[in-house]
């Protein structure tokens, strides 16, 4: 249990009465959703009291927000200490503690230290934790935040070979960035990056991944960046957090010399882990000179692989512990159900945003789906703040029940910008034809240049439903418009992607 003694000013300040005129907004969690929520409340209502209760000593900060299109933004994420964050945001109070209990009827929370804090509105942004397979095995590490990323870096330093299990964004980028170490990549899908890419895009990336030169630096940084924050003051705990450049501050280099072999095991999972005593050495896949490894992974496809350690990047589990005693409901993926105004269903005055929540109760949307990404965490945090303030004001003025804040357009069009394998990747709408059951009238348009760009557009009855844009295509704003316009593009066929036509101009 983590506890920090509040100094007497802070205690006094917090033992106010949360009232209509002096509302108190409490945000549980200092991750991207939490800070986006708190900062938005502060921006919209500078006089309101905002408190973040964070179990971690590090607060995520979103920087260098670049609005690429109306729904698409890219940004960097830093982790800063509580003190540095407070210095930057003097109007947001931060308590370093755990929330033990929420009383949604009487509207207060109880912290680990035993403090009772009243609130007007509460937003739960506790995120999700990595799912670590065989978590009690000391040779397995999960990776999700800076602390675990640093641990990975340390272990990697002495390693010649590791096994990475998982096929999400972190696994993809990790495999690409690791140097001087052999990697066995175990994925249960047929192709790499399946949650992001279709098999064509996976195939596009494969040569880039496998042929990566040791010192390539494809990263094109933005020309104008805000300075690194006060977070870089000497002596404070800082580091690259998990955003597109999370690996920038890590070495990610092992002991295997200049070679780096990547061995991908498709449609396989780790069945069990064995020590060198337990393993039958005749079964071991002999791909290296080393005869004794610290740990052996036996896969469901029969292969037995020795390695220095295993990285589990196998998905996340929402941190809903603080809500389980309350009359709310949870969806299949473990997230707490929220309504279209971010309210936790079944509770009054309690909201949730980011990885902890689940949008299964929302009306099905033609071009949007929930994915546990930092971009959605930010959007949800911001929208939750807008709803909290709007609902609070409605009660103040009209005493009627909360009325609905219309959802922002970012929940009508899925949009995510990131980088994989050194290439800019933009995903829009139903980029993999997700959820499109009727395949009559479904068609893909494709334009690709090996190693440079991959553009795939999903068309349904002549209307654009989604797109995957890899490389510097400059098509994202036009395609965002075409998807939202829902106009009939069938007369253009594949010439929509014809490089001899300036399609952006055509639809200007």
């Amino acid at each position, binding site marked *: 249990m983590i506890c920090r003694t509040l100094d007497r000013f802070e205690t006094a300040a917090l033992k106010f009465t949360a009232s209509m005129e002096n509302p108190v907004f409490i945000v549980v969690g200092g991750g991207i959703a939490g800070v986006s929520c708190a900062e938005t409340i502060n921006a919209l209502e500078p006089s309101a009291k905002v408190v973040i209760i964070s179990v971690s000593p590090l607060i995520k900060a979103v920087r260098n927000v670049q609005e*690429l299109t109306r729904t698409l933004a890219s940004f960097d994420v830093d982790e800063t200490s509580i003190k540095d964050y407070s210095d930057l945001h003097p109007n947001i109070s931060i308590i370093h503690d755990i929330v033990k209990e929420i009383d949604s009827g009487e509207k207060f929370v109880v912290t680990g230290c035993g403090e009772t804090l009243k609130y007007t509105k509460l937003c739960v942004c506790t995120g999700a934790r990595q799912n670590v397979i065989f978590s009690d095995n000391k040779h397995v590490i999960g990776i999700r935040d800076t602390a675990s990323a640093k641990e990975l870096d340390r272990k990697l330093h002495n390693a010649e070979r590791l096994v990475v299990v998982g096929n999400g964004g972190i696994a993809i980028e990790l495999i690409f960035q690791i140097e001087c170490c052999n990697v066995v990549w175990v994925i249960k899908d047929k192709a790499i990056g399946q949650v992001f890419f279709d098999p064509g895009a996976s195939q596009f990336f494969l040569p880039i991944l496998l042929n990566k030169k040791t010192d390539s630096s494809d990263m094109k940084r933005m020309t104008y960046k805000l300075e690194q924050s006060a977070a870089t003051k000497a002596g404070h705990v800082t580091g690259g957090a998990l955003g597109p450049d999370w690996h920038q501050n890590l070495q990610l280099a092992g002991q295997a010399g200049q070679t780096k072999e990547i061995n991908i095991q498709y449609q396989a999972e780790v069945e069990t882990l064995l020590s060198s005593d337990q393993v039958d050495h005749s079964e071991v896949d002999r791909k290296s000179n080393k005869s004794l490894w610290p740990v052996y992974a036996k896969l469901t496809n029969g292969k037995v692989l020795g390695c220095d350690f295993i990285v589990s990047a196998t998905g996340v589990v929402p941190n809903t512990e603080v809500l389980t005693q309350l009359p709310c409901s949870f969806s299949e993926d473990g997230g707490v159900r929220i309504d279209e105004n971010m309210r936790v269903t079944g509770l009054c005055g309690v909201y949730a945003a980011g990885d902890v929540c689940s949008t299964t109760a929302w009306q099905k949307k033609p071009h949007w789906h929930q994915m546990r990404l930092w971009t959605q965490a930010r959007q949800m945090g911001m929208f939750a703040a807008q709803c909290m303030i709007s609902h609070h004001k409605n009660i103040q003025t009209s005493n009627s029940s909360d009325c609905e804040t219309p959802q922002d357009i970012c929940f009508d069009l899925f949009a995510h910008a990131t980088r994989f394998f050194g290439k800019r990747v933009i995903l829009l709408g139903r980029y993999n034809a997700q959820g499109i059951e009727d395949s009559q009238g479904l068609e893909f348009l494709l334009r690709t*240049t090996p190693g440079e760009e991959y553009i795939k557009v999903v068309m349904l009855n002549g209307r654009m439903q989604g797109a995957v844009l890899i490389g510097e295509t400059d098509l994202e704003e036009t395609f965002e418009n075409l998807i939202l316009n829902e106009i009939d593009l069938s007369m253009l066929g594949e010439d929509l992607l014809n490089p001899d036509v300036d399609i952006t101009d055509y639809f200007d």
Partner: protein
Amino acid sequence: MGRSFDEELQYLERKTDYCWTIKKGFVPNMQVEGAFYVNSHLEKLMLEELRNSCRGGIGGFLPGVKQIANVAALPGIVKNSIGLPDVHSGYGFAIGNMAAFDMDDPESIVSPGGVGFDINCGVRLIRTNLDETDVTPVKEQLCQSLFDHIPVGVGSKGVIPMQAKDLNEALEMGVDWSLREGYAWAEDKEHCEEYGRLLQADPSKVSAKAKKRGLPQLGTLGAGNHYAEIQVVDEIFDKHAANKMGIDHKGQVCVMVHCGSRGLGHQVATDALVAMEKAMARDKIIVNDRQLACAHIKSAEGQDYLKGMFAAGNYAWVNRSSMTFLTRQAFGKVFNCPPDDLDMQLIYDVSHNIAKVEEHMVNGKQKTLLVHRKGSTRAFPPHHPLIPVDYQLTGQPVLIGGTMGTCSYVLTGTQHGMDTTFGTTCHGAGRALSRAKSRRNLDYQEVLDKLAEKGISIRVASPKLVMEEAPESYKDVTEVVNTCHEAGISKKAIKLRPIAVIKG
């Protein structure tokens, strides 16, 4: 139609060194002739584009001459459907196509394709009293400051709050909203087409979806994907006109802002296209190209579109005003003085995707016309009552933003332009549809095979070559502006070159 290129040529005739006519019959139902302005190089591009299309061309994209002619077949059109020198393929109307319709003719139509999706995409030019030598030493700082102020995000400096109520007011009031909120100077209004507010705007004719697309997430007016450029005066062609604009020497620093109504405009246009397509059968309107969906001006659909389109236009002016405000703040911060002291006055603001109701002389009579200017700019002559008093002797400034990173121009309107093109000139650069290049057979078969595994049919477009040279089919802004000048429809006044670009 299946005519050969030679057969098509029978309908085209060079009238002057700079102007061609497209005769009736080139496409069915032409009510008037078409016309297009070119120099000898641009003429080649127009004809090559036509020749290529006779051989199949590029799928659903029509050559410029055909698009101009199809517009000439629209009901109620007056005088000519005109292509400016930068004319190139667009949705419905070509970009760089002007067409005016007689408001007194009940058959006259209004067409969203004749305005464009990015309604009131336009340009404004702000001068300063700074010189390039003042800016060069602090260029990095200045760009950083602009960057900090213009692309807005939570907690960044350039926050201009806009909630739903504000959006409705902005749609109705245009620059008057910006003035009221303190984001514009009083003189800005004067130096803007329509004084920055289309009075017939009606926010209730803008759909909820369009408003959603127009309302930025935090209620901050993000500038999005158009750009601001810091430019310096490179050449002065017309000293007298330049002086009236407050430009008096080479090296003088200006800022050009280029943006429109983005997603909101797109939705307004799309909503109208859908409504009008439905109404065309009822009203027995026939067009040569489905993309030319239109409605009678006086019909409900026509009126709804005009009022909504005007509202979108107002929104774009609020966008440009906000960017101007943030630009003034940014400069003031770096040079440590109020923007007034830097004489950051608005020279002018023009729209190049809009339709307006204007008075023009047609065959000696004054008529009220609905003038569609898509990818083209209004260029009113000296003494025109609608231009500010400081430009009465020199004519309306016309701002031509080249492609981002290339040079820009300021022109002035002429009487000849007023007489021949209803006071319209070009808006920038363009590109003709070129013959399909023989592209190297790049090996992407494996990628294609993998994608095909999904069992969904795939259409493949030819790959983009990594190092594309500037296509020969390019209609560069200098050439376009010179052609307009030679044709007498506008006059060159100033040339500017960019020294920094801030892409929002």
